[in-house]
């Protein structure tokens, strides 16, 4: 096993290269080969008919966020501010309130994510000790006509469902 140095050979001095046409025909053989193959079978072309055909979104994909819920539909988040602390872009804004159903002490009364600032790094998901925030919605394109609507709040985050079933999501390594 060894790393060696290789001096690159310089091409271009031979007669056949100098007369130009010979090499050009050789090159044409390559391009025409591609043309021929593509004519015979165009299923292998790298073309995706977006937006009719969506790209593959995998369980690891860091898409738009959502807040998860307990089985009874109540919010899992305990407003511990871990995600907000770990966010490098500082784009999560949480306001905590008292929780009345006895599941924990606090709940978020406000949970906003500024998606224009978000860099989709997944650090919030990594930081959450409750598995309360996830980026498994499969939403990869966040577009809008105004700034306000890319500022998502708690209701929208809770309303979005995950795009994968639990087993598949866990297999992604979460």
């Amino acid at each position, binding site marked *: 096993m*060894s*790393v060696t140095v290789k*001096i690159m050979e310089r091409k271009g001095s031979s007669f056949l290269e100098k007369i130009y046409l010979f090499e050009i025909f050789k090159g044409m053989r390559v391009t025409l080969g591609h043309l021929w193959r593509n004519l015979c079978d165009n299923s292998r072309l790298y073309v995706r008919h977006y937006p009719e055909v969506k790209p593959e979104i995998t369980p690891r994909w860091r898409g738009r966020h959502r807040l998860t819920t307990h089985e009874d539909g109540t919010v899992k988040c305990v407003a511990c501010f871990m995600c907000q602390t770990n966010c490098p872009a500082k784009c999560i804004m949480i306001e905590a309130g008292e929780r009345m159903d006895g599941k924990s002490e606090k709940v978020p009364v406000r949970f906003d994510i500024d998606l224009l600032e978000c860099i989709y790094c997944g650090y919030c998901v990594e930081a959450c000790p409750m598995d309360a925030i996830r980026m498994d919605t499969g939403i990869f394109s966040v577009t809008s006509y105004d700034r306000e609507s890319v500022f998502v709040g708690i209701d929208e985050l809770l309303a979005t469902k995950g795009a994968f079933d639990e087993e598949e999501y866990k297999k992604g390594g979460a």
Partner: protein
Amino acid sequence: MNATALEKLQAAFPEATISTVLDSAVIAVQPERLIETLSHLKNDKDFKFSLLLDVTAIDYLEYPVAQEARFALVYTLRNWQKNMVVQVRTPVHDPDAGVPTATHLWDSANWGEREVYDQYGIRFIGHPDLRRILNHWQFKGHPLRKDYPIKLGQICYETDSMEKEIRARLALKGVSQSTMQDINTEIMFLNLGPSHPVTHGAIRILTALDGETIVANVNEIGYLHRGFEKTAENLTYNQVIPLTDRLNYCSALMNNIAYVKAVESWLGIEITERTKFMRVVMSEFFRIQDHLVCIAANLVDMGGLTNYWYLYNEKEASYDLISRLTGARLTSSFTRIGGMYRDFYEGWEADMENHIKNIEKGVSDSYKLVAQNRIVHDRTQGVCVMSKDLALSYGFTGPCLRASGVPFDLRKDAPYYNYDAFDFEVPVGTKGDLYDRLMIRYEEIFQSIKIIRQAMKMIPEGPIFVSDHRVALPPKSQVYGKIEGLANHFKLIFEGVKTPPGEWYDSFEAANGELGFHFVSDGSGRPYKVKVRPPCFYIMGGFHEMVEGSMIADAVINLGCINIIGGELDR
């Protein structure tokens, strides 16, 4: 650095304090002796530090340990034959009075010192062109000083005409005022960029033309400056990783790896074997991506559009693997200090083999169109030549340096992650022209494929994270269920990974050359200072040497050929 080299250094500089940090030696001198020391290190036959890698400064205003002066200046030098790195540091007592320049020793000091002046406000006496470089010319203050508020944005209202600079360059080239005005030899000024397809980003190339020939050239960069270093000072070590994605965004994962490698080496963490192999596989895969972008775009500039499809199709397809693995196409954020974010997914081997097979096919097809094509030869051979000495002097590294005939590659000369266990070749050019630079990238793609295939055979099973609880987040099951796990998790997230106080430099062979990080730690979980040594910053610093005397069309393909990536250049 070995003991004999250290003894030699101590013998040569009896008055200086010399210490070793990781693999490099740090020589502390007083400002009066700075230039003498630097020139001795460069010219003495025992040392021959022919590469000035980087110049940076540190502002100790908020540093917990008292220092000799508020500012310190650091020159990082490398002897590429013997694999030695030396950092020369000196206290700066009065930044306005300044310190003498090293521009007469290395050309790379020109841009390096300009950056220090721009960011820290330290003057360099005798510098030929001391002005801002990353921040705009109407900027007030020096952003990397600790007392500069991070939120203070400043807007540029007017472009810099750069007339003074281009005229100075013309005068240096021996073009007199009368020639410039003579109707037959009149000089025309032309801007290429900043916003123009040829720049592949935003760089301003101001040329002085005689007909179509470039007589003089000066460049303006900084259009993409986002203040990486300032931002990083306000984040924990792990939080910086997503920012490194945005340096060289064509090979984001490589920056992630280079960054964490630098932190880990200071922490003295030995990462697991599997992680090492993972990092090798992924950095070679991203080296391929980087070269694919470079060659494809470069050949489009040359008029060979077909190549673009053969190369870029495969790059596009590779994003399938990348997004399955990392969860994003471009911004991978895939490493963490002490390991990786996730392990490979099930079935990655088949995907990887499939991709590299297709890449091999695509690159070979493109190579067949290019290698013996006379148009390519005529456009590239003997054009924009960079001689070996000049390339070293300008601080070139990576494929551009190797094209000029310097067989320096960190993977070969300072192997990390078991690189010495692989069988591969480092391609080296002979002339340093466009042709060499282009062909080396082709060859490096094939070599990287070779490394990936070997690494895939050797990669062991095992954990992908060290088990050290000072750096590794506890597994989620413990966080959800156990109080110790939760407490550890809280501590790491809130305080970050703590590093012992000190300063160090660590480097990595990225696709464009040596990607280095200079850190200063105050013992907390946030870097006191991070300085990136971006390979293409210094390559761009030598751009004018390559294009002066060539035609406009050559300058265009030369810019594509050196693979300038704005994110890394301007940070």
